[in-house]
């Protein structure tokens, strides 16, 4: 018992020591003593993972003098400018040939990790295994109890963990080869191995935790993406996706479509609800609302109404002669009693009905009017209902920094709108 406590304490301390080592190696020498004290007192928890594990790449704007990173030249694009798995593998292999003693392999691995997304191999397990293979074998394995208690070769172990962390971020499951490599490099009782075991345990459990899974590769075509997003939001499988307008890019720019795409979704229930809607009450087109799909943000609009007042809600009466076989209602004067009410006393905020959703290439009123016109074909009653556009100017949401794709997001912020910031109503009676 006490031995276990002691060993745990020792591990905590060694974490601290790890902190010292890492800061000592990367930080300025003048602050070593100060940072050492902090590391000892607070242990490793204070380090934000990324700071601790992956040293930030030198940011050019902060450091005016760009320090060339070691081995950067290995990853320079080849003559034909291709950046693919083959060239990445070539770079890693050439490092092995280049320095037989593997000097600077930690720096090289960090660099390679940063470069992986550029080469599109960040989800490739074999590449991670190859990177781990860069580590020299057997050297960092602890050989005695003291080495085992304290972090043996902390910088190398952190580097190993960084590899595993990046795998985790991209949802790559380690396999037995990874395990074999890690035991060879760091031994069974090491932090990378611990990380590996934790990944084995938790990644499997978290892999399918989202009940509404988003496909890994989102469609590039904004129209397909819109269809996917609408399906993603609509729980009713009977709902029908309708393309009201295909996008026609103008020849001049090619970016700003003069005729943006409009895709809508409506379920039969929503259609019936819209048909029942009291025509004297307006319906609202609201939006744009953001929807995140992996690293993409798309915007959608809804057609909704306010909650009908309780007195207006016409209670559905059961027709007298409805069911040929059995009575649909009992002629009793009492209903479910309080002592058999299974529901908790909740303050339920009911929202008004949503009648349809759409995604469009542009978020201005002119485009959305076309959507409403399209909806009128399947919902004739909509022609009698006043439609009010309540469009927000700003989405209030970040744009995707799609540095991976290297292109602008498909749905930019709403532009070309007359309204000011915030919600503004602009009634537009009697469309069509």
């Amino acid at each position, binding site marked *: 018992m006490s031995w276990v406590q002691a060993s745990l304490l020792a591990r905590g301390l060694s974490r601290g020591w790890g902190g010292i080592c890492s800061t000592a190696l990367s930080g300025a020498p003048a602050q070593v003593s100060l940072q050492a004290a902090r590391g000892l007192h607070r242990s490793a928890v204070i380090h934000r993972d990324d700071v601790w594990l992956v040293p930030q790449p030198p940011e050019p704007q902060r450091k005016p003098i760009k320090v060339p990173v070691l081995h950067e030249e290995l990853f320079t694009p080849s003559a034909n400018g291709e950046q693919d798995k083959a060239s990445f593998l070539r770079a890693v292999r050439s490092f092995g040939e280049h320095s037989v003693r593997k000097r600077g392999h930690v720096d090289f691995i960090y660099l390679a990790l940063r470069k992986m997304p550029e080469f599109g191999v960040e989800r490739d397990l074999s590449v991670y295994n190859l990177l781990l293979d860069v580590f020299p074998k057997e050297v960092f394995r602890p050989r005695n109890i003291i080495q085992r208690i304290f972090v043996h070769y902390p910088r190398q172990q952190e580097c190993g963990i960084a590899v595993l962390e990046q795998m985790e971020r991209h949802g790559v*499951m380690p*396999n037995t080869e990874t395990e074999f490599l890690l035991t060879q490099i760091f031994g069974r009782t090491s932090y990378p191995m611990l990380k590996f075991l934790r990944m*084995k345990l938790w*990644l*499997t*459990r978290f*892999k*399918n935790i989202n009940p509404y899974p988003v496909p890994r590769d989102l469609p590039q075509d904004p129209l397909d993406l819109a269809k996917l997003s609408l399906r993603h939001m609509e*729980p009713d*499988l009977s709902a029908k996706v309708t393309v009201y307008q295909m996008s026609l890019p103008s020849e001049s720019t090619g970016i700003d479509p003069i005729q943006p795409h409009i895709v809508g979704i409506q379920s039969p229930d929503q259609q019936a609800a819209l048909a029942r809607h009291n025509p004297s009450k307006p319906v609202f087109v609201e939006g744009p609302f953001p929807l995140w799909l992996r690293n993409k943000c798309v915007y959608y609009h809804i057609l909704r109404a306010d909650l009908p007042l309780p007195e207006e809600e016409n209670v559905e009466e059961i*027709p007298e*002669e*409805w*069911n*040929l*076989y*059995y*009575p*649909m*209602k*009992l*002629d*009793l*004067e*009492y*209903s*479910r*009693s309080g*002592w*058999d009410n299974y529901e908790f006393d909740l303050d339920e905020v009911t929202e008004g009905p949503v009648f349809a959703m759409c995604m469009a290439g542009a978020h201005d009123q002119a485009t959305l009017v076309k959507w409403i016109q399209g909806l009128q074909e399947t919902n004739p009653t909509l022609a009698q209902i006043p439609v009010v556009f309540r469009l927000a100017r700003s989405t209030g949401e970040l744009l995707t920094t799609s540095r991976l794709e290297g292109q602008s997001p498909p749905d930019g912020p709403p532009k070309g709108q007359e309204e000011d910031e915030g919600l503004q109503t602009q009634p537009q009676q009697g469309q069509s």
Partner: protein
Amino acid sequence: MSGCGFFSRGAAVVATAATAVRASRVPRVFTVTHRPLHTSLQSRSFAKELFLGNIEQKGVFPFPEISQDELSEINQFVGPVERFFNDEVDSRKIDQEGKIPVDTLEKLKSLGLFGIQVPEEYGGLGLSNTMYARLGEIFSMDGSITVTLAAHQAIGLKGIILVGNEEQKAKYLPKLASGEHIAAFCLTEPASGSDAASIQTRATLSEDKKHFVLNGSKVWITNGGLASIFTVFAKTEVVDSDGSVKDKITAFIVERDFGGITNGKPEEKLGIRGSNTCEVHFENTRVPVENVLGEVGGGFKVAMNILNSGRFSMGSVVAGMLKKLIELTAEYACTRKQFNRNLSEFGLIQEKFALMAQKAYVMESMTYLTAGMLDQPGFPDCSIEAAMVKVFSSEAAWQCVSEALQILGGSGYMKDYPYERFLRDSRILLIFEGTNEILRLFIALTGLQHAGRILTSRIKELKRGNVSTVMETIGQKLRDSLGRTVDLGLSGNPAVVHPSLGDSANKLEENVYYFGRTVETLLLRFGKTIVEEQLVLKRVANILINLYGMTAVLSRASRSIRTGLPNHDHEVLLANMFCVEAYFQNLFSLTQLDKYAPENLDEQIKKVSQQILEKRAYICAHPLDRTS
């Protein structure tokens, strides 16, 4: 075993007693010695009284009998019909060709089988329900003929007998009874099964107010291609008493000669392939106003009456089929040798025969009990009983035919033998004339409605609550929980039920008593919203069917012993066996109906199906799937 069941029941009652105190009410629940609350003679149906925890003995004990004259009369009919079915009907050919040969139909007509229940003054046989049931046993040898005849007279022309006026009867019944005209019942539409509101067929009054013009399509009409007379249900505009115009259903007698009637081609079916089922289209068919059946706008009630009245005969049909099946399979089991022993020596085979005999016995008893009730003067309301017979017999048919096939092993599966045809033919029984699911709801809700009316006043008083009623209730619940003996008058002195069935009678009484209590609790718990609790209603219906079956076999076996019918000891065995089984099934169902019963999985069932239906697929991962 019985003690065990009893305790679990007792514990559950205590649990409800506690909640009952909280709600502070409860009237004196029916004392055993006298039965209050008999509103009128008409509503004193046996099944409805069961919902109040009473056993209404009138009409049930003793088992209804027919006179010697009637018996010999029916036997005169049965002989030739049976000979005809044995010698001349080739069921296999009918099944393969999908058609009943014309000469077979002609012979059926000459035997008078197209007008069994048509009154004699209109040229029919004018037989009672009991005798109709007896004849049904013989038709059962061929499913297609049974269905053709049933569609003709149990529903097709039944409307004319039930609500037709004198002219209509005189005009149509003689030809229908002779079989010159065949009748069909046109209710189902593509969009309307049991939902009367979605009927699309429309009848509009012509300008001279002498005709209705009928337009629309009906599907799955049995005899649709053969029939000359149709009972058609269509929407008509009816001016209400307050002056508003409403769409209401009206029944019409439509002759094929009115014009504008076309058929689709006969449907290919799984079973009863010889019967003619097809679509019937009406296009501007002009129906004279005299041909309105009942009142204009009163078609809904007509349809309900026809449907409710036609059901009980299924019991005797299935019983007839089972009896024949038992003969065939027993022959096989006693001759087929395996390991130098006859199949009949194996326990697992013997079990199947016991099951078939038991089911046949129960459904026979239920059918003839119901028929006897129906034959009592004054149009007694036996719709619940008839529905129970239908549900029980159709399910027993499916189960027993399947077991019979099992006895035969591979031969049962082959087309060379008739068994697979029996299996195919019997599958429809669970579906038509109201699916069993719908009939269960009908059974439960109709009974609950009756019980609810009578209990409403009592429960109201109880909800207001005064100290004495509360104390009384607690006392009664305590007595119940201590396992009181229930006496509903079946085993008094002189006993209604023969003493050799005394144990079973006690079981029935106990079940009935606690069923009444449970119904009361359910109504108190759910009130009107019990309509939405279909899983609860299903259990209520299942218990009621068992109770009715128990009553029927007890009554019949008692009569058999007392009148000294042959093999009555066999009947006693079957009756006791069924009663014990049903008793424990009922105890289990009653326990499930208690609040918070661990046996009740309704919540889980609902959740599972909800998750599946949301995705519209089986959502479990494949057993071979991995995450890493």
